């Protein structure tokens, strides 16, 4: 959010100093201006992709041209897309929120009690080491075929990084502040809410950013195993029908969804906790 401030100070300087401002080179301008450079790269790759597949006549089941993917996209009515997106998004978000809600008390326990951390940590590592893709079919059989098993699978994939980052963050508080808290004889919950949690915010957000993408992965994995809707289901279904451009379109949607969710978390941090970002990124 510093862009306007930067501009005003920059113009302030040029009016104050009679010295001519040094000319920016094109590459400097590209580096300083957001969006433009990545966008150019993206467009260039698309163009190469389109040109390459046409030039070498690449069959669409190997790699469809972007234009074919676009065709595949518009062949599906928008309402169907919305249905699929909503199905995946719902599972991903509920699983994500569940993992936040459950990992917070676990992290507080792990950070505050060495006993608990000795007892629980190995168990968490074991859970984390279980290949979720392999367990997914079992979970579906146990819990049935509605949203619940998919949410559980999503939760299992996304919660471990959250527990780890939250615990690390809660323990990263300067010991002096904990001493200050104890010297004030403040209740422990205030030590957690007023000191440890705010200090952990940068750590928590790095966990939140990893987990939001993982929760999309979790939802898709669950759909691969059993589902009648969702982008994961759609990709699998399209592939089995040999409609590869359509599957690629699904992949594109998934990518956009992941990026958008990531950006939402990113923005939430920027707006709600600007101090938790490294200085140059505020």
């Amino acid at each position, binding site marked *: 959010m510093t862009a306007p401030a930067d501009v005003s100070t920059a113009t302030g300087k040029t009016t104050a100093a009679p010295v001519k401002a040094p000319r920016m080179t094109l590459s400097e301008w590209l580096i300083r201006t957001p969006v433009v450079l990545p966008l150019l790269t993206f467009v260039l790759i698309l163009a190469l992709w389109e040109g390459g597949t046409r030039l070498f006549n690449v069959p669409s089941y190997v790699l469809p041209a972007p234009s074919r993917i676009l065709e595949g996209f518009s062949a599906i009515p928008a309402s169907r897309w919305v249905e699929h997106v909503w199905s995946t998004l719902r599972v991903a978000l509920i699983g994500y929120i569940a993992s936040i809600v459950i990992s917070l008390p676990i992290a507080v326990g792990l950070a505050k009690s060495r006993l608990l951390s000795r007892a629980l940590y190995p168990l968490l590592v074991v859970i984390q080491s279980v290949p979720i893709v392999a367990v997914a079919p079992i979970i579906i059989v146990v819990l049935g075929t509605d949203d619940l098993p998919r949410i559980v699978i999503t939760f299992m994939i996304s919660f471990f990084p959250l527990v780890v980052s939250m615990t690390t963050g809660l323990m990263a508080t300067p010991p002096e*502040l904990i*001493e200050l808290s104890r010297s004030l004889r403040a209740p422990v919950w205030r030590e957690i809410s007023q000191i440890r949690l705010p200090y952990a*915010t940068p750590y928590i957000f790095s966990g939140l950013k990893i987990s939001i993408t993982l929760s999309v992965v979790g939802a898709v994995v669950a759909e691969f195993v059993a589902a009648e809707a969702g982008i994961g289901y759609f990709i699998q279904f399209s592939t089995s029908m040999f409609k590869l451009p359509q599957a690629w379109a699904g992949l594109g949607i998934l990518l956009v969804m992941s990026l958008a969710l990531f950006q939402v978390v990113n923005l939430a941090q920027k707006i709600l906790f600007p101090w*938790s970002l490294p200085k140059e990124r505020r």
Partner: protein
Amino acid sequence: MSIDQDAIRFSDVGMTFLTDHGPLTALSGVDVALKRHEFVAVLGPSGCGKSTLLRLTSGLMKATQGTVSVFGHPVSEPRDDIGIVFQQATLLPWANVLDNVTFPAKHKRGRVSASDRDHARQILATCGLAGFESRLPSELSGGMQQRVGIARALFLNPDILLMDEPFSALDALTRDAMGFELLRIWQASPKTVLFITHSIPEAVILADRVVVMSGRPGRVIADMEVPLGRPRDESSLRSPEMQDYMAHLRSLLIREEVA
């Protein structure tokens, strides 16, 4: 509270920690008393238990031997009349200067009243920080951050101020200035100060008395009045007498650092 009662008294204080490598005796047989409103500096080699001495006084730890009393009462838990200043200011990076100073109220009682804020503004003014109330710590220099740390320690009007190498993270010039600043604050509202430092000139210019500790296990090897009146300034240390005094302290410390 009688007038001549000691503010802080260490009687035969020893502290042994249980570590992964067995017991570690940090302090042993420490006998020191601080009169009310006395400014005492503690010098000693690294690891001799100076910070431990502070923690015992603040009630954050309990001595394994002997007793630490504050105003005649053995310390068993943290008290409201003791303020602590740490080596690093350790302010809350998300809270502005005013909120950092009122933090003890918020943390202890859960809320900050308007009079708390007025009180904090007053202290900030005494600490030379008027006008900086709404700045974030990251916008302040190291010296100013440490002043906020001092203001926070003064917020609950403590009778005793415990300072653990409060200026050691600052550059030499700022450090000297902060010393005189502290003396000014101390003279404006007298307090008993236990001041830990590694710097002999700093100890001498600030304190009424200097306590020198031995290497681990820390014990008191010298407890000397500073032969210097007040007010003091930059030239106070230039006299041959003060030079000799400091040379003596240095020789005591060097012997301990080597031992």
